[in-house]
C-alpha cells in the first residue's frame, strides 16, 4: 500500500503534482513537447539530473565507487603501500594506475559522480526551498470533500452548535501547535513545517561541507619535524623535514613561532606474552613537554600527548612518534671534533631497538658512514647477538658498523638522512669484514679502524616527531556537520501532518468528522487524529450516543 501523500507533495520525482506546481516544472510539459529544442533538451536533462531517482542512483554509484579506495593503497593515505605495490606487481600497477585507482578519491570518475550528485542536490534544494517558503506562508489547504478516504477517519456526535464546535476545535488544534484555517463548516490544520525545514538544512549543510573543503581546503598545509630534547624548532618552510601545502598556500602564511622540546617521557607497563612467556612492553602514555614562544615573544610550557594536540596561533601540533637520539662524537686522529650531533634512531620494535645512520663527511681521511643499532635495555642472547628487552634506557648499548669511502653527498641528488647508500662505500667493521662491530655503552669511547680517531657515545636525549597542521576547513566543516545532524534529526523525527475537523448540524447537536494526512512516513497519524478528536470532544462536554451507527471506515 502506497502511503497517501498530500497532493502537493514534492518528492522530486518529476511526476506532475495535482495542485501548486513547482516553478521549474510547469513549463517543460505542454506545448514545447513536439519539438525539443536546445532549451527543451537542457530542461529535460536538468529535470532528469535533479530527479529523486537520479539522486538515488548517484548515491549508490558513489558508494560503489569508493570501494576501490579500500582495496588498493592510496597515494594520499598510504604512499609507501603504493610504492610497494608497484614493486610487487609492476604490470598490474600500470593498469590500475592508468585507471587512477591509487588516487580513487581525486580520480576523474569519483569526482564526476560526486560533482553530479551535488549539482543534482543544489538543483533539488533551490525549487524545494522556494516551494517550502511559499507553503510556510500560505494557508493550510481546503478541506477535502471525502474525509472518509483519509487516515484515522472517525465520526462522533456532540452537543452544541457548529459554531461552538469549530471554535473549540480551533483552540484544541492551536494548542497542539497546528496552524488552523477555517473553510465553511470545517477546519483545516497543518503542523510540522519544521520537517521540511530540517530536510533542507540537512541538504544545504552537505553542500556546506563540500564547499568548505573545496575552498578553505586550498589554504591548508602540514609539515613534520623531528625535534631532539633541548632543540628548538622554528616555524619556517626550510626547517621542516617534510612539508606539503595546498593550492593557495604561500610561505608568508607561516606564522613565526618556535617550539623547544624540554622533555619527553614514555610510560610503559609490563605484560607477559601467553605463548612465548616473553615480557611485553605496553605503552601507557607518551608526553612531550615543550616550550612554545609565540610571535609576540611570550613563552609558555605545554604538554603534547598522543590524543591531545596543542593549538599554536591557529596551527595544531601533534605528537606522532618518538625514540632515542644518541649523541655521537667523532674525533680525528689529532683529537679534533669532526662530528658531534644527536642522531634520531628509528624504532624497529616495541622494545625500541632502533636503527640510525651517521654520516661524517669531513675531517677524516675519507668520508665515513655508520649504521648504528641502539638497544635501550641490552642483553646478550646465546647466539651472541644483542637484543633489547625493555623500551626504557636501563642498559643503553650502541653498536656501529663503519663504512668508508664516498657518501655520495656531493652530486646534488637529495639523500635520505635515514638511509646509507653503500654503493661507493667499503665496510670496515661488522658483518663479514672480520672486524667486530664497535660496541659502546653510554659515555664510552672506542677507536675507529685504521687509526682514524675515536667515536664516543656522549649522551642519550630523546626525540619526538611533531606534525604541524593548519587546516582552515575545520570550523566550516564542523558548523556544517552540526547543522546537518540537527536538520537530519528534525527531518526524520518531526511528523508533518494535516488534520481536518468537519462539523455538521444534526437534530440534537453536531456530527463531527475527523481525518488526517501525512507527508512522508508517519505511522502515528491515526493516534494523532484520535488525540485531536478526544480533546475536542472533552471540550464539547463529551460524546453523545446516537441511535444511528457510524459508518465503518473504508480503505
Amino acid at each position: 500500500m502506497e502511503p497517501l501523500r498530500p497532493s502537493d507533495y514534492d518528492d522530486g520525482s518529476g511526476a506532475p503534482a495535482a495542485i501548486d506546481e513547482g516553478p521549474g516544472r510547469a513549463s517543460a510539459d505542454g506545448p514545447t513537447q513536439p519539438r525539443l529544442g536546445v532549451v527543451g533538451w537542457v530542461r529535460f536533462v536538468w529535470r532528469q539530473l535533479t530527479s529523486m531517482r537520479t539522486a538515488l542512483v548517484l548515491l549508490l554509484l558513489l558508494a560503489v565507487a569508493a570501494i576501490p579506495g579500500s582495496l588498493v593503497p592510496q597515494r594520499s593515505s598510504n604512499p609507501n603501500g603504493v610504492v610497494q605495490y608497484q614493486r610487487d606487481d609492476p604490470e598490474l600497477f600500470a593498469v590500475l594506475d592508468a585507471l587512477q585507482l591509487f588516487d580513487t578519491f581525486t580520480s576523474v570518475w569519483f569526482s564526476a559522480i560526486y560533482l553530479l550528485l551535488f549539482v543534482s542536490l543544489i538543483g533539488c534544494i533551490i525549487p524545494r526551498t522556494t516551494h517550502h517558503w511559499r507553503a510556510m506562508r500560505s494557508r493550510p489547504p481546503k478541506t477535502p470533500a471525502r474525509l472518509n478516504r483519509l487516515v484515522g477517519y472517525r465520526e462522533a456526535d456532540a452537543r452544541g452548535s457548529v459554531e461552538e464546535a469549530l471554535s473549540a476545535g480551533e483552540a484544541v488544534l492551536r494548542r497542539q501547535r497546528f496552524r488552523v484555517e477555517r473553510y465553511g463548516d470545517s477546519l483545516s490544520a497543518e503542523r510540522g513545517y519544521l520537517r521540511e525545514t530540517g530536510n533542507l538544512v540537512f541538504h544545504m549543510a552537505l553542500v556546506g561541507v563540500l564547499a568548505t573543503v573545496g575552498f578553505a581546503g586550498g589554504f591548508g598545509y602540514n609539515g613534520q619535524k623531528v625535534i631532539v630534547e633541548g632543540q628548538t624548532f622554528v616555524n619556517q618552510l626550510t626547517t621542516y623535514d617534510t612539508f606539503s601545502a595546498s593550492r593557495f598556500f604561500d610561505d608568508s602564511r607561516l606564522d613565526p613561532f618556535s617550539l623547544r622540546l624540554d622533555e619527553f617521557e614514555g610510560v610503559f607497563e609490563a605484560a607477559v606474552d601467553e605463548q612465548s612467556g616473553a615480557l611485553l612492553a605496553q605503552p601507557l602514555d607518551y608526553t612531550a613537554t615543550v616550550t612554545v614562544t609565540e610571535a609576540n615573544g611570550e613563552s609558555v610550557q605545554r604538554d603534547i600527548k598522543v590524543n591531545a594536540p596543542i593549538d599554536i596561533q591557529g596551527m595544531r601540533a601533534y605528537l606522532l612518534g618518538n625514540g632515542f637520539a644518541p649523541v655521537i662524537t667523532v674525533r680525528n686522529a689529532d683529537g679534533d671534533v669532526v662530528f658531534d650531533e644527536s642522531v634520531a634512531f628509528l624504532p624497529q620494535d616495541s622494545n625500541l631497538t632502533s636503527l640510525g645512520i651517521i654520516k661524517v663527511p669531513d675531517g677524516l681521511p675519507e668520508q665515513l658512514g655508520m649504521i648504528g643499532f641502539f638497544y635501550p635495555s641490552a642483553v646478550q642472547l646465546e647466539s651472541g647477538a644483542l637484543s633489547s628487552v625493555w623500551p626504557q634506557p636501563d642498559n643503553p648499548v650502541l653498536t656501529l658498523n663503519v663504512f668508508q669511502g664516498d657518501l655520495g653527498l656531493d652530486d646534488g641528488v637529495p639523500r635520505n638522512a635515514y638511509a646509507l647508500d653503500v654503493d661507493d662505500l667499503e665496510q670496515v667493521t661488522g658483518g663479514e669484514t672480520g672486524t667486530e662491530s664497535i660496541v659502546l655503552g653510554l659515555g664510552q669511547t672506542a677507536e675507529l679502524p685504521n687509526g682514524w680517531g675515536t667515536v664516543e657515545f656522549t649522551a642519550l636525549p630523546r626525540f619526538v616527531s611533531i606534525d604541524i597542521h593548519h587546516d582552515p576547513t575545520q570550523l566550516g566543516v564542523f558548523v556544517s556537520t552540526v547543522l546537518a545532524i540537527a536538520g537530519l534529526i528534525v527531518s526524520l523525527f518531526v511528523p508533518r501532518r494535516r488534520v481536518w475537523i468537519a462539523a455538521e448540524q444534526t437534530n440534537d447537536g453536531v456530527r463531527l468528522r475527523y481525518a488526517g494526512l501525512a507527508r512522508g512516513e508517519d505511522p502515528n497519524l491515526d493516534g494523532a487524529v484520535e488525540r485531536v478528536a478526544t480533546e475536542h470532544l472533552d471540550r464539547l462536554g463529551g460524546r453523545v450516543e446516537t441511535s444511528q451507527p457510524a459508518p465503518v471506515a473504508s480503505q
Partner: protein
Amino acid sequence: MENLASLSLVAVYSAMGVYTLAFIAFTLDLAKRSAELPARAASGAAGAPVIATAAASVRGSAAGGTAVLEREKTLKPENKDGSRGGATVYQRVAFALAIIGWVLHLAATLTRGIAADRVPWSNMFEFGLTATLLGMGTFLGVQLWKDVRYLGAYITGFTVLSLGIVTVNFYVDVVPTPPALQSAWLIIHVLVASLATAFFAIGAGLSTMQLLRHQREVRKTAGLRFLDTVPGASTLESLAYRINVVGFVFWTFTLVAGAIWAERAWGRYWGWDTKEVWTFIIWVLFAGYIHARATRGWRGNRSAWLAIVGFGAVIFNYTIVNLFFEGLHSYSGI
C-alpha cells in the same frame, strides 16, 4: 583482576548456552506456527478477526469513548497490524530465556570492563561482546514498543554465532590501551557504532521478513507458513524503516565522532583510511535507502534489499576489513 576476567569468560559461555536454548525455542515456535496454521485457516475465520476488530474500534470510538479503544489496542497489537495469532508457549519460554541470557551477557561485559579498568570495547573480542549485548538489548527493548518476537530466532542465532566467533578466534587477555586509543571520542565512536549496528541488525531482520512475506503474498509460495503469522509486508517495511533511520542517525554520529577522534590522534579529521572509506560507504548506502523509501518504484522490495546490503556492509566492515585490509585502524584489531 585475572580472576574477574576469567569469570567474565565463564559468563560469556553461559550466556551463549542460554541463548542457544532460546534460539532452539524460537525456532520451535516458528515451526509450530507453520504446523498449526492450516487448522486455523480451516476454521474459516482466517481474515475475519482483523475486520471485526477494525469495525469494533470505530464503532467503539463513536459510541463509548476512546478509553476502550486504547485498551483494545494494547491488548491485541498483532491483530492491529494485520498478523494473526498471539504468542505461543515456545515463544514465551524463548523470550524468557533470551532475557536470562542477556543478563548473563551483561554480567560478562561488565566484569570484563571492571577487570580491564576501562570500557569493554577496545579490541575485536570486546567490541563483539558489547555490540552483541547492545543488539540483544535493543531487540528486547523494542518489545516495549512493538512485538517483533518473530525475529527472535534470527537475533539469538546471530548473537550466538557472533559471540562464538569472537570468543574462539579473537579472545585476548586484558591489556592496557595504547596511547593512540585513549580518547573519549573513541569511546563514544565505538559505542555509537555498536548501537547503530544493533539497530541495523534488527532493521535487516525486518527487511528480510518483509521480502519473504512479500514473496509469499505474491507468489503464494509453499513452506515457511509461519510467515502468515507475522505482520504484512508493508507493516514490516515501515517498522524496518523506523528502526533503520534510528540506526542511520547513530551511524552519522559514529562517522562524526570517528572524524573528531582521527583529528585528535592523527591530525586530520578525514583521510580516506580503509576504515573511514567503509564508514562512508555504509553511510551513503543507508542515505540511499532513505531516498529509496521516498522514490517511486523503489519503495518495497528494492529498498528492503538496500537495507540488507547496508547491514551486510556493516558486517563486512567489522570482519573482513578489520582482519584483511591494511590501514591505520588495523592495530586496534585483535
